[in-house]
């Protein structure tokens, strides 16, 4: 085929794809990085997709592809969705950032929503959740409940998202319990149940009686249950099967309200490129049920903290806060800027150990 023909066909097809949108139901595509059955990150995005279907019925058609590797495969899947007439595409992993921008350039009439990234365009929005707000509530419960004064923390990779969570949890654990120490291990994986179980066991053996995790499987809960006397928190999804103990609460990613709102915006033609970073207030970060294993007063304090964060009255990173080396980061009453938080690469004062380089 001649090059010219290829390009003309391409242009025609793109034209077709966009004109078709007027009559048909709005088509929404989802690109997932894991399987929908991962019980964590991708599972929650898929729940939100189902919520979109529920909300709009026949007026919407959703499609998804799961376990898409970041890179050229992602770019192809997005292009294929756009060619098939998708009006709105959610790309739900940080690593899809450059592919999303590339594909968006080729399809100016298709809207893209990229999770957790920072590159935007006229037809690309970004969105993310302030999980650190939930971490503050977890830290409060953890600090109040630990008897050994040792909290174990399973990190995935040393990236700003995870470091932010550690700092937030630590600050609020220290507030209620000045003697609390954090033991942090890095698993170097988002998802490896056997390794996560090992990490939890190791932390428990070394005296931790609270396990916080920033990896996606429920394996640490099972390890904690076997050990007895240890509490845990659900990550990404509720992990309710470990209620009421060891799992005493959880941070749930609730993407549904955002996905519904953005789909509606496309339907009504009011969609604009935005940068959304929502937390407890907007309902994007939910605190799962705090079970009865938590003493009444601690539960009440935790819920109060949640409400103050939700209403915007309190910011989890409010000074005075020093960096680990003792230098001042936030002065009395000062709150952290989003820019600093997004690129956070330091521990706050009091955390022992170094961030791996």
């Amino acid at each position, binding site marked *: 085929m001649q090059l010219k023909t290829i390009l003309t066909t391409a242009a025609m097809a793109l034209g077709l794809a966009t004109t078709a949108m007027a009559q048909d139901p709005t088509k929404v595509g989802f690109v997932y990085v894991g399987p929908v059955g991962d019980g964590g990150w991708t599972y929650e995005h898929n729940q939100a997709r189902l919520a979109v279907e529920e909300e709009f019925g026949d007026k919407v058609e959703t499609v998804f592809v799961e376990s898409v590797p970041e890179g050229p495969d992602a770019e192809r899947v997005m292009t294929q969705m756009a060619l098939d007439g998708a009006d709105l595409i959610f790309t739900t992993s940080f*690593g899809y950032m450059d592919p999303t921008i590339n594909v968006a350039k080729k399809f100016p009439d298709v809207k893209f929503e990229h999770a957790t990234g920072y590159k935007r365009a006229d037809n690309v929005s970004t969105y993310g959740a302030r999980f650190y707000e939930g971490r503050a509530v977890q830290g409060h419960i953890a600090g109040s409940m630990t008897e050994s004064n040792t909290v174990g923390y399973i990190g995935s990779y040393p990236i*700003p998202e995870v470091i932010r969570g550690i700092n937030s949890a630590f600050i609020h654990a220290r507030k209620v319990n000045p003697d609390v120490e954090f033991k942090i291990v890095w698993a170097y994986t988002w998802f490896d149940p056997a390794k996560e179980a090992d990490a939890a066991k190791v932390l428990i053996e070394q005296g931790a009686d609270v396990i916080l995790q920033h990896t996606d499987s429920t394996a640490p809960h099972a390890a904690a249950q076997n050990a007895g006397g240890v509490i845990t928190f659900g990550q990404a999804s509720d992990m309710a099967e470990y209620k009421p103990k060891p799992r005493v609460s959880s941070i749930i990613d609730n993407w549904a309200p955002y996905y519904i709102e953005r789909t509606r915006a496309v339907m009504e033609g009011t969609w604009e490129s935005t940068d959304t970073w929502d937390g407890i207030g907007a309902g994007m970060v939910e605190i799962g049920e705090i079970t009865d294993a938590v003493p009444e007063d601690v539960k009440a304090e935790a819920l109060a903290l949640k409400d103050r964060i939700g209403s915007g009255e309190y910011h989890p990173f409010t000074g005075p806060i020093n960096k680990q080396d003792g230098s001042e980061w936030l002065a009395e009453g000062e709150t952290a800027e989003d820019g600093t938080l997004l690129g956070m690469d330091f521990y706050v004062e009091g955390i022992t150990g170094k961030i791996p380089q």
Partner: protein
Amino acid sequence: MLKLEKRPQPSQLWIYLTPLIAVLATMAAGSVLFAFLGKDPVVAIRTIFWDPLFSEFAFYYRPQLLVKGAPLVLIAIGLSLGFRAGIWNIGAEGQYIIGALTGAGVGLAFYPLDAWFVFPLMVIAGALGGWAWAMIPALLKVRFGTNEILVSLMLVYVAEQLLASMSLGLMKNPEGRGFPGSRNLQHYESAHNAELITGTGMHWGVVAAFIAVITAYVLLNRHILGYHIRLTGQAPRAARFAGVVPARLVLFCLGTAGALAGLAGMFEVAGPAGQVSIDFNVGYGFTAIIVAFLGRLHPVGILLAGALLALTYIGGEIAQSQLGLPAAAIQLFQGMLLFFLLAIDVMTNYRLAWQRREVA
């Protein structure tokens, strides 16, 4: 009873017939699977095999076949040389990663210098990186007689850890707001392995894959080295009498495979993928082993096998999104295809014959 009887010569008819029968058998078995999952089997099969090639949007998918197939073919060609001589490099995935790291490393070191020589240097670095990584099992085998299957496989895991370390540390994009992953080479013109003609999918990696196919064909059929490789695989003792130095052959086969895998990684990181990231490798090195065998270790066969596998990947993605098939079903379907191809291939070298028990 029914017995297999070795043919004196591989059957020319069956060489061409077996892939066809295998694909048809897979379609039949796949139909059952898809029907079982509540999807229209005819539509599913058409989506996987037909749509990428001839549907309305084939203008996009056909070039993508080249993008997806090129690394598979490039790596498989290198592996096939060793496999023919009984040298088992199953660590191409590691060599692919290292090639990407060294290639990208050179590119990133020159950033933002705008010069014509950056890309050629990256190509050389990528090939050298893969070559060097493959030299580890090669030298250990030659010097100590260690098993190259294991050493090359072990080095895959070492390479994966290096990749994670590089994406989080040394090669991390200084403007990437602390996120893992390097600068995107697609935005650095001197280092970008761009499409040579827009819309065709043709990038330097595809060109390299075609060159590798032709070179391997000539080497195996026209060159004394190719003869030595084939001889060593068929009759190692005879090969020694014919003057083959086994050590040299090991170094050559593993080195070539490593260099080609390194090239594939480098072209991928500088082109379609664009950046070094923790999950950069997606299993091309392992899939290429299957491609090599499906292609019966023959250069042209490998080319066809690579294209077939790329087709099922791309068709599989379309089927997932259009029909809502789970990714697992596609994986299972690919597994079936491979099983049938491997199983029916027996007819090339053997025929079925009725025999009485005692005669055997």
